[in-house]
Structures are given as C-alpha cells and as structure tokens.
C-alpha cells in the first residue's frame, strides 16, 4: 500500500509515485518543519490510540507500545538530549567569534526497515521527522500496509497540514531499491551484513549512509559476583525474546583464568537451565556453527521488539 501526500493508494506505480514526490520535494525542503508541529501531531495520534478512536490493526500490546513511544515530553526530551537545547537556532557558539552553528535536517531520507519488528518502521519515520526530514519509507514485505495506515493516521492528526508532504510509503521491490534511493540525501537501513551491503552499493556518492546493523552484547561477570541469583538473572536474559534483540547477551565472559571456577559456573548454569521455564542452552563453540547475529535494534522508548521465526525475513532484516 502506498501513502502519497497523506492519501492511501492500493495501486500506484513506482515511477508515478517517484515522479509525483520528486516534483513536490523542493517546496517541502524549502520550508522548515518545526519539531513542535511533529510532536503535536504525534501527541494527537497517541491520544487517539488511547481513546481507541481508530480502526488500526493493532493488538493491545502494540497499541500501548506506540502510546508509550509517542509521549510528547519524551520526544521533546529525546530531541533536546540528542541535538541540544535550541537545536534549530543558528547562533554563535561563542559570543566572541562571528561564527554561527545549528542543526538542520539532511533533507530526503529513505528508510528501509525490517520484517521482524512491525512497529519499528513507524518509529523510524517519527524519529526522522523529529530531525525535520522528508521521509520515504520502503517497508518490509510482511508489513501488509500497517505502517502506511499508521502514518496516515499520524498525518491526519497534524493541524498544520505540513506533515503530509514529509511522509510517503513506497512498497518498492528489492530490485527497485536503487531507484528509490537515487534522490535521497540519506538512506537509513536495518538488517544483516549482506542485506546492508547490497543496499549500500546502490547509494549515490555523497548520500549519507545510516546503517543499523547487527550487534553483539554480552555479560561480563567477576568471580565474586557469581552468585546463584546472578546466574539466574543471566539465564533469564538469555531466554528472554529468544535473544532476538541486539542487546540480548550472547556471551558470558568471566573475569578469571581459573578453569576450576569456570567449570563450577558451567555446572551451576546447567542446573539452572534445566529448570522450566528457562530451558536455555549452553553451546560448545564447535558444536554448531553460528550463522548470524541477532536482528533487532533496541529501540529507545519501550517499543517491544517481537521475535521472528528465522528464515522468514526478507532482504531487510532489522539491525542490532
């Protein structure tokens, strides 16, 4: 499903969409998008979700996650933390020097988002709107129009009418990604190494590459802290989300070179992991060749990342 200028379209051609969007692009880039406009619209969207005045295909957990993400104070705070107070103000950083600096949007950002976190695409676009960008989203094939509907509902909450021109959803095929990225000033992509590499090769020179790739997280344990409670907590975390988040620990590293201590830990761990419901496993490194790194970005606000069945992801898998 396409979203163009605030309107949903079941059928649209990619070429037509790109032509229409590019034609209007200069006028959207020329007029600054105030973060207040974005935050007001997002707050309205959250209120609507809260009052259940929407027919969006969300379960209760997803609805709540979006409401939490869309809190205006949190978004304003995020912006202030990441870009500083008065980020837009083109001002002297030192009164003694005639030198002025400010943050400005990149311009047009194309987002290529993963299949395993259904709400991530929406959140990625909101985040980029906070920076003032025009955003074209290429959702995963499993998105089924969800993000286009969410963004349409968001745009409808914007009293200024400006957001409609800053948000588009273009369900391009993998082969069309190069075409989609051609006019972009930044491409934000999520996924595994191979998928990111394939996208990156299609960027035009000078286009900013914003990759969110796979990551490794781990536990670092000192022998004196190796209590039964601590090992329980590690086992819980290893089992939570089936380790599909980039912040899921994959290693348990022990600050010791004493084989005896480590052997004791292994045994303690084994006992714990045999308890239901943890049912975790320890692996010999040689026992099975690890295939890939985990696949979801830890989102700053409480958007829960949902585990997926491996093998179902398209080209764009979520990054760590």
């Amino acid at each position, binding site marked *: 499903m396409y979203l163009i200028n605030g309107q949903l379209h079941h059928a649209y051609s990619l070429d037509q969409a790109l032509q229409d969007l590019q034609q209007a692009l200069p006028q959207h880039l020329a007029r600054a998008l105030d973060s207040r406009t974005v935050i007001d619209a997002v707050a309205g969207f959250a209120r609507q979700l809260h009052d259940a005045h929407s027919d969006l295909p969300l379960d209760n957990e997803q609805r709540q996650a979006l409401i939490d993400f869309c809190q205006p104070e*949190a978004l304003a705070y995020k912006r202030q933390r990441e870009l500083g107070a008065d980020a837009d103000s083109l*001002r002297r950083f030192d009164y003694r020097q005639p030198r002025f600096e400010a*943050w400005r949007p990149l311009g047009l950002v194309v987002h290529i988002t993963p299949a395993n976190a259904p709400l991530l695409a929406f959140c990625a676009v909101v985040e980029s709107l906070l920076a003032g960008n025009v955003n074209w989203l290429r959702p995963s094939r499993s998105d089924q129009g969800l993000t286009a509907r969410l963004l349409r509902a968001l745009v409808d909450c914007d009293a200024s009418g400006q957001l409609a021109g800053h948000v588009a959803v273009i369900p391009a095929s993998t082969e069309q990604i190069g075409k989609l990225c051609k006019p972009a000033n930044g491409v*934000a992509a999520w996924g595994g190494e191979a998928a990111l590499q394939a996208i990156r090769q299609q960027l035009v020179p000078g286009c900013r590459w914003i990759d969110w790739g796979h*990551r490794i997280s781990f536990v670092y344990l000192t022998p004196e802290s190796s209590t039964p409670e601590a090992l329980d907590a590690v086992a819980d975390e290893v089992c939570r989300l089936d380790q599909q988040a980039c912040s899921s620990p994959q290693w348990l590293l022990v*600050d*010791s070179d004493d084989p005896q201590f480590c052997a004791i830990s292994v045994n303690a761990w084994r006992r714990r992991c045999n308890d239901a419901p943890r049912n975790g496993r320890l692996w010999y490194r040689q026992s099975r060749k690890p295939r890939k790194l985990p696949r979801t970005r830890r989102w700053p606000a409480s958007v829960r990342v949902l585990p997926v069945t491996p093998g179902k992801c398209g080209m764009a898998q979520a990054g760590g």
Partner: protein
Amino acid sequence: MWSHDRQLAPSPLFRSVLLHPLPQALLTAALLPWRNVLQSCALMCAQSRIAELTHALIAAGVTRIAPIGSIHDGYAGEPHDGVYALQRLSRRVSVSLAATQLPNQASLDLPPLAAKSCAAIMNKEAFVAQPINDQAQLYFRSGGSSGTPALAGYSYRDFDRQMRATADGLFAAGLDPARDRVMNLFFCGGLYGGFLSFSKALELLEVTHLPMAAPADDDYREIAQLIIDQRVNVLVGMPATLHRLFLNEQERLRAYGGVEKVFLGGEHLSEQNRALLRSCGVSSIRSAIYGSVDAGPLGHACKASADGVFHLMNAIQHLEVVAFDEDVPVIGDQVGRLLVTSLAREGGQRVQRYEIGDTGRWLPGVCACGLTSPRFELLQRHGKLLRIGTDFISLSDLASRLQVPFQLQLDHSADGVERMQLHCELAADIAKHRLADYLTLMTVVDSGLLVLQIEQCPPEHFVQNKHSGKTPLVIDSRR
C-alpha cells in the same frame, strides 16, 4: 557452553550462550575482532570495581553498559550504537561572518510567525490567581499588588531560554564579552530577581563578572575602590543605586575614569543623572533590558536606537499593543497598553496576553543595527505598581492607608534622587502618619533612594491632562 580459549564467536541464538574465561587484562585484545559490532554489556561485579571495569569495557569497544535485568530497556535520548540517532539524521551547519558584519548579533534566526491571539486579557490579579504548575522549579518573589507577596514560577529550562535571550540582548546593547569587566549592582531592595537574572545572563556571555551587594548603610566607598582596583568598565544595576554610587563617590570615579558603560534594568535615568555619570567618564548609558519578574525579559536595547526603545525578544515573547479604552490592537504607532504572551514558559504560570502595566508604541521600519526583531518604545506605567527607588510601590496600598483621593508626581530632586510628590487634602503630618506603616515606602525613603514630599492640596487643584482633561493618578516625569 564452556570453552577455555579466547576465540569468541557469535552465539547460535535462541537461548544459547557461550561461556568464556576472559581476564580484564585481555579484554581489549580478545574483543578486537568484534569491536565494530559490540554493543551492550551487562556488568556483574562488586561495586568497588564498577568504574575500573567500565573503563576497560568501553576501551575494548563496548558502547553501552546496563544492569542484566534491564539490558533491553533504553531511556529517552539514549545514544544507540555509539551515536545519537538524530545526529545521524541531521546536518550540522556553520556560518562564519567577517568581524564587521552583524557584530552585535548573537543569532541569525528568523522571526517566528506571530500566532493570532484570541484569549482574554490577563491582569495582575488573574496572573497571581493561577495555580503554579508542577513544572515550576524556580520561584521568584514578584511585586504583590496588595501586600501579600506573589510568586512567579519558572522551569530551569524556561529560565535558561529567557536568560539566553537576555544575554543576546546585552550583547546587542554593546556588551563586549571579549574585553568588558562587569560589576553587577542589581542586588538591592526587593528586586533580587534582577540580580539573579543578570548573573545568569552574564555567565552565559562568559564575560568577567563581579557580583556585588549594594550597601544598606549608603556607604559606597568599598564598592568604588573595588571598581578601581579590579578595572571594572561596565556597571549594571538599578538607576537609583547607580546614581547613589556616582553621587557619593564621584570624585574617585571621575579620577578613575574607567567606567565606560552603564546598563540599567528597564527604567530611565534623568538627564541630570546622565550628566553626572558622563562627567565621570561614562560614554554609554542605556536602559538595556526591559522586563518583569512575572513575565520575564521582554526587550533589549541596541546600539542604534535611542534610550527607551527596545527590540522585542521575539524568540521568547510575543507582544501586542492594544488601545486604552478597548481591547483592540492600536493602529500603526499609536500608544497603547502592552500585552505579553510568553513563548518560553512551561513552568509556573501561563503568561498569555498578560497586561504588564506599561504603555508603549511600535516603532516602524528596520533598525540600523541589523536586527530584524520589531522595536517598541516604552512609555510610562498605567497600572497599579510603580517602580520607585529600588522597589515597587503599590498604588492600592497608598490608597488604603491615605483613605482620601491623591495624586503622585514623580521626578528627580535637585541632586538627582528620585522624588515622589504626594498631593492630597490631608495635612502633611497626618498623611505621613497614615503612611508610616507602609514599610516598603519608608525603607526606600530612609535609605535615601527616594525623596518623599507631601503637599496639602484639594483634589480640584490636582494637575489635569491638557488634552483629555482627565486627572491622572500618577504623573511620571522621570525621564
């Protein structure tokens, strides 16, 4: 599984964890092949080792350390994979100008679009009657109109934005952070809000700053000596304090001759007092910042405009000028009442179409100083509070004590001290007796900052406005 070597590899996932021994000394080397993809580490150690191991892990490439039980929980504004996402989505832009271009302009921001106001006009009573919201962190005592002290609340963020605008205003008015040495003499009377505000603004300007308490005993010798010893060249303060300083210490200050600039808060200095300051070498005397404790700073002077003319601080305030007898905008540059809507006020009270109690008019045209913010000329107060000496005098407090009609004429005495002539039908000693318990008034009189003259005079002989025929309660000739 347990593997007693240091060749790390990703886990096969789905509830799998690889257990390795890795002494602290080998962390960086063992994690080196994975440095580009490292993210979170749950550090489990004794508290005494947290700092040491944190540094070691970060040096080894970890970007995030969190407790094991909340390793998936982020917080608003948390960096991700070593960067702030919004910075990756933004450009940092820079503009450098020649030193001679816009030398007193702190920002190149465009004026915000003015919002249409339709709310009711808010007077002092309505302002004070508002509950202070829970975002307030900083409370200032403001001039209460009926004897009870009122409070104005701000969040620190509000205060910061407002003082940033004040700093920009002082910069536009000619303060030079590269070479000026400023003494802050705002600390006097009940107006400590001005002292704290200027302290903050001077700090933001990163200018050399000597905060100073004004003496209660009228002895300015030590202050004058400090000005000379510390080569102070800029004074900021209330007109009454500065006038008293120059009056008492004129010989020494004249001999020093190093005070070049005097920045006043809002009020005017009489021509006579200006002459005194000039005779001591002061070349620039400006009413630099106009504002109030309730509404915050509103306007600032510039190098190109006359004294009493202010640029609106339009990044933080919206200003309207409305007619006296009707709540409609004045036409062109007609004189009217000033209404303020604060754009930078989340904490404390709402400031929406707040009638600040002053009159003024818009000045047409673009200012020669280069700033594009609109300018207004501040005229006299029309409200119920008068700034006299270093404090506020309430007209209703005077009325409730005198119990008879009265008229005030404000000017300056022969030696330049502010003078209040009170006309009423009471004999002078009776009137004085009735005012004896008005401590605010008596304090400014006793400290020599105000001369009070009471003259018996029937109401029919009160001075009338030549044009309107009305008898004004206050005639302010303190320019």
